């Protein structure tokens, strides 16, 4: 077990939504938000507000640099209607630790005259998400 630097992060994707994920190239960041719905159940006499948990709302973002050798596959997936299988790996030095699940992908591209062409994408859950390895 070790603390990790983000420089070894990785994103894998199967654009068909299957289990055959491959590395998405030319990316430089990803984030995953595991926000939970929280329902207020506070009643008279409680000492503080109290909540019960609802569903997890899977959302996240991916960013990188345009590279026509690899980026069009990512853009096509975002322009399609099929949920993709995503694997988000914090560090390839410990590649068995990851988050995965089906996601609907959106993408954008930015082409400024004075900087590199960048892409970014956001996703939301389209199926059950899991973290690996599962708790012992």
């Amino acid at each position: 077990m070790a603390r990790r630097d983000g420089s070894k992060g990785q994103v894998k994707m199967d654009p068909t939504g299957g289990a055959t994920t491959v590395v998405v190239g030319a990316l430089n960041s990803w984030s995953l938000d595991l926000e939970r719905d929280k329902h207020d159940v506070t009643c008279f006499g409680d000492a503080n507000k109290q909540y019960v948990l609802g569903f997890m709302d899977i959302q996240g973002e991916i960013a990188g640099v345009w590279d026509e050798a690899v980026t069009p596959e990512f853009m096509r997936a975002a322009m399609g209607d099929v949920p993709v299988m995503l694997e988000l790996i914090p560090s390839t030095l410990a590649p068995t630790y990851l988050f995965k699940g089906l996601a609907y992908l959106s993408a954008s591209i930015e082409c400024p005259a004075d900087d590199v062409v960048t892409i970014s994408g956001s996703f939301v859950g389209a199926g059950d998400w899991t973290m690996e390895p599962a708790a012992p």
Partner: protein
Amino acid sequence: MADAGLVDAAVVELLANDAALTALCPNGVYWDLQPSSSPSPGAFVIVSLFKCDRTPGLSVTLYEDLLYWVVARVHETSKVAARQAAARINELLDGAILDLTAAGYTAMACARIDRRADSDRDKTDKSVWHYHGGLYELRSYPS
């Protein structure tokens, strides 16, 4: 107790133990200064600490960023050997996860964030020295 000086020594040792770099810079790898016992002129590598940033956690050091200038200094008419030495240094350090076990640290990342490629004239005989290398950021934490 964590001693970041041992990390400095580990970086010097890594470079000094590389046969390819030794072939290009046969006069050695040194910390900050070439010792007076070393032959001069020659070809050697100087490692020096440029900056250190510590990111504290609760009661611990979460990680430290150590910035090193790693520069091949080559006394030759041609800059080719200096450039090749810098390329070898980059192969050894950029993207590497260094083994800092003996130093009591765990490496997280190492990357070149700046370059140096310039030349100068020797103060005594006006011959040419070439300085090629880079500024490397080594991120690690006490194990």
